[in-house]
């Protein structure tokens, strides 16, 4: 009997040990995250880590609808300046602090007023927050803000423990305390961020993993090799050129979805002296450049067809894509005619800067070859990324091949780039009509009103082309075939609800 007990116990322990090992999901990220403080954070990979670590007031579904997370219900006042949210009951932060309306007030206050907060512009429309009762919170706005819920579905809506925030101050990022499915264990710079299952999570039934570890591995080839060698269970941003080989590998599962972002060429039309060049002054020249590009061929050549050709700030087929302006067919004759009309029948020179990595350089080389056939001779200036950004802000460019990772609400993909005072308007484009339309679109919660305003702005922007959109990258994840339950979202985040090992 004693013997049988010992054997049984040993078997049990062995089984548990094996199980515990198998239940740790190791995810390879493209970069290392920056400081792990939701209010100070700036990087994309940081957001991936938060998705496991922190819950938000609301979330999105794969179709970008806003769905409940920590807030179970919400309603707008008639004039759309008051948002009343009902909060989920029985939620606790990782340090045991209960989640309630006071916690929401403290969090929004921190996003707005913490001296090192990077969320200030995202919550700028909020003029007041009050706890109506323990589980009801009312947010007051200066004027209607269509983007608010989308902001609250990202870092601005992530709830951190007010107790921990108070105690740790600006140091919060060294040991973040949230209320998400996993709690923080340790972080070694440029090596690993380790999280473990939070037993008191409100949605614990959906969490099947014991631990999750994020490992930054910048090189895409090495990241894939690590996955194939079994040192990782999942990787994000598989290179498009590796897609086919990964799909043919029976040991791997590949999931992809068109992202929210875009890549394009930002043209300098009003940012300093270089905008005085012909391409900055004559819209028809920019139209000619756009017409000379075969966006489908570009996608086939550089990305083996894995991405989505595009010509607007949002991908074709989404709500705010203007169907009246489909992705243009290449038309070299029309491009030549436009050049001739503008007085450049013999061809014209253009300098475009591009980030000095192989993929983006190849994109520009393909564009260069296509444009040359229409008489536009592009000189490519490969530039290290930090320098590229500086030259772009300073207006030291004619054209700049650059992109945007995309935002849940369409406003984040367009307003700050083409409005006169826009924070990232490197193009220097300024048209009061566009400002008026885009302001109207961001201050209405009525999709019909917004659609009409965006479509009207598209008529002007498609003519002026301050940004020539080229394509929309897809998010591509690869994982071991025994990982199941992963669902792709267009925001590129990794949501771990339902993810499990099938051993």
């Amino acid at each position, binding site marked *: 009997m004693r013997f049988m007990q010992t054997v049984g116990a040993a078997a049990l322990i062995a089984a548990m040990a094996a199980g515990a090992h198998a239940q740790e999901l190791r995810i390879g990220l493209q970069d290392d995250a920056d400081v792990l403080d939701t209010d100070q954070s700036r990087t994309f990979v940081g957001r991936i880590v938060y998705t496991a670590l922190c819950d938000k007031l609301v979330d999105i579904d794969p179709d970008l609808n806003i769905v409940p997370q920590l807030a179970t219900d919400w309603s707008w006042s008639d004039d759309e300046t008051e948002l009343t949210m009902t909060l989920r009951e029985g939620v606790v932060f990782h340090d045991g602090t209960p989640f309630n309306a006071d916690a929401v007030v403290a969090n929004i206050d921190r996003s707005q007023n913490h001296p090192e907060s990077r969320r200030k512009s995202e919550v700028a429309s909020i003029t007041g927050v009050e706890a109506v009762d323990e589980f009801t919170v009312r947010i007051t706005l200066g004027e209607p803000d269509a983007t608010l819920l989308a902001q609250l579905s990202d870092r601005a809506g992530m709830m951190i423990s007010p107790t921990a925030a108070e105690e740790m101050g600006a140091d919060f*990022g060294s040991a973040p305390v949230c209320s998400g499915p996993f709690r923080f264990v340790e972080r070694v710079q440029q090596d690993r961020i380790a999280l473990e299952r939070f037993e008191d999570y409100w949605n614990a039934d959906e969490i099947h993993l014991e631990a999750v570890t994020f490992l*930054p591995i910048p090189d895409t080839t090495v990241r894939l090799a690590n996955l194939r060698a079994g040192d990782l269970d999942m990787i994000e941003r598989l290179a498009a050129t590796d897609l086919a080989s990964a799909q043919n590998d029976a040991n791997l599962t590949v999931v992809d979805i068109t992202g929210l972002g875009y890549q394009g060429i930002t043209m300098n039309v009003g940012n300093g002296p270089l905008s005085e060049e012909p391409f900055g002054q004559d819209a028809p020249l920019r139209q000619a450049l756009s017409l000379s590009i075969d966006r489908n061929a570009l996608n086939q050549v550089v990305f083996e067809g894995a991405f989505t050709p595009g010509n607007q700030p949002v991908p074709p087929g989404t709500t705010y894509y203007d169907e009246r302006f489909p992705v243009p067919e290449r038309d070299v004759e029309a491009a030549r005619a436009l050049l001739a009309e503008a007085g450049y029948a013999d061809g014209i020179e253009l300098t475009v800067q591009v980030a000095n990595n192989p993929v983006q350089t190849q994109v520009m080389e393909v564009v260069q070859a296509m444009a040359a056939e229409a008489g536009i001779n592009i000189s490519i200036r490969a530039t290290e990324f930090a320098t590229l950004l500086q030259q772009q802000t300073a207006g030291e460019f004619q054209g700049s091949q650059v992109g945007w990772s995309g935002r849940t609400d369409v406003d984040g993909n367009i307003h700050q780039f083409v409005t006169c005072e826009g924070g990232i308007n490197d193009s220097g484009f300024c048209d009061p009509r566009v400002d008026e339309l885009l302001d109207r679109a961001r201050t209405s919660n009525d999709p019909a009103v917004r659609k009409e305003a965006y479509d009207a702005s598209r008529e002007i922007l498609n003519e002026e082309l301050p940004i020539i959109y080229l394509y929309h990258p897809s998010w591509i994840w690869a994982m071991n075939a025994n990982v199941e339950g992963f669902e792709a979202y267009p925001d590129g985040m990794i949501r771990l609800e339902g993810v499990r090992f099938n051993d």
Partner: protein
Amino acid sequence: MLAFIGRRLLIAIPTVFIISVFVFLLQKLLPGDPVLALAGEDRDPATLEALREMYHLNEPLIVQYFYWIGAVLQGDLGMSLRTNQPVTSLILEKLPVTFQLAVMALIFAVGIGVPMGILSAVYKGSWLDYIANFVALSGLSIPNFWLGILLILLVSVNLGWLPASGYRPFTVDPVRSIETMLMPAFVLGTALAATLMRHTRSAMLTVLKSDYVRTARAKGLRERVVIMKHALRNALVPVVTVSALLFGELLAGAVLTEQIFTIPGFGKLVVDAVFNRDYAVVQGIVLVTSVGFILMNLLADTAYMILNPRMRDQK
């Protein structure tokens, strides 16, 4: 003796000062605005301004320099602009990792380079010599990053013998630590083995022609004893010096190797810091490395004096 060390230390002060100015200015010469790299995608002007303010980037260069050097003199290398961690603790955390890599690589380099050098000297002009030279030249010519990726594909993906990443500190998990370091140390070691092999070979050739080796042979000693006991000892003196010098090269080579094998060491820290324009980290690392080099030189000079009495009278 003490006077010598004291004098050298005094000379080191202006050297370190000049290096600190140099490091600081080099950073500022780099194109690219650090606050743009810091602000991330949403680089709205208010954020940029606040960041400039916070890190004194609006002040004149000379004022910025004194902010930095003032703190350094108090033992504070500043905070990483990117992760808000103290630079001093970042460096202390990464240094042992790279040191482990360098030591293991040196073992590979010596283990491969010296025996090959001996063989090719002893069998000069034979096929063994040609093979050794070929291998040495290949080691020098094959880029680290290429050999590294090929090794990962062969050893980790196809054979599954060694993990491709997942380094653990030696103190936490020694077996795993050495497993993950084997390939990077080999990659780094092969390049240096080539240099060592060439030096060993030429030193051996010189020694083998000398009178005392001829005498040893004339005495009727067995060839193995002549080579291993009499010739090699003397030939190794310059090789040991070269090995010590190679240590600096190892640190430089670690930069690339650590990137490929994702080893969280010094090299990876400095590369990431440069691309993120994390001024505080880059300045801290270069300053610490320079001071380390000055100290190493001083140590070498002192050791020389101890070993070689003839140098003691020199001022």
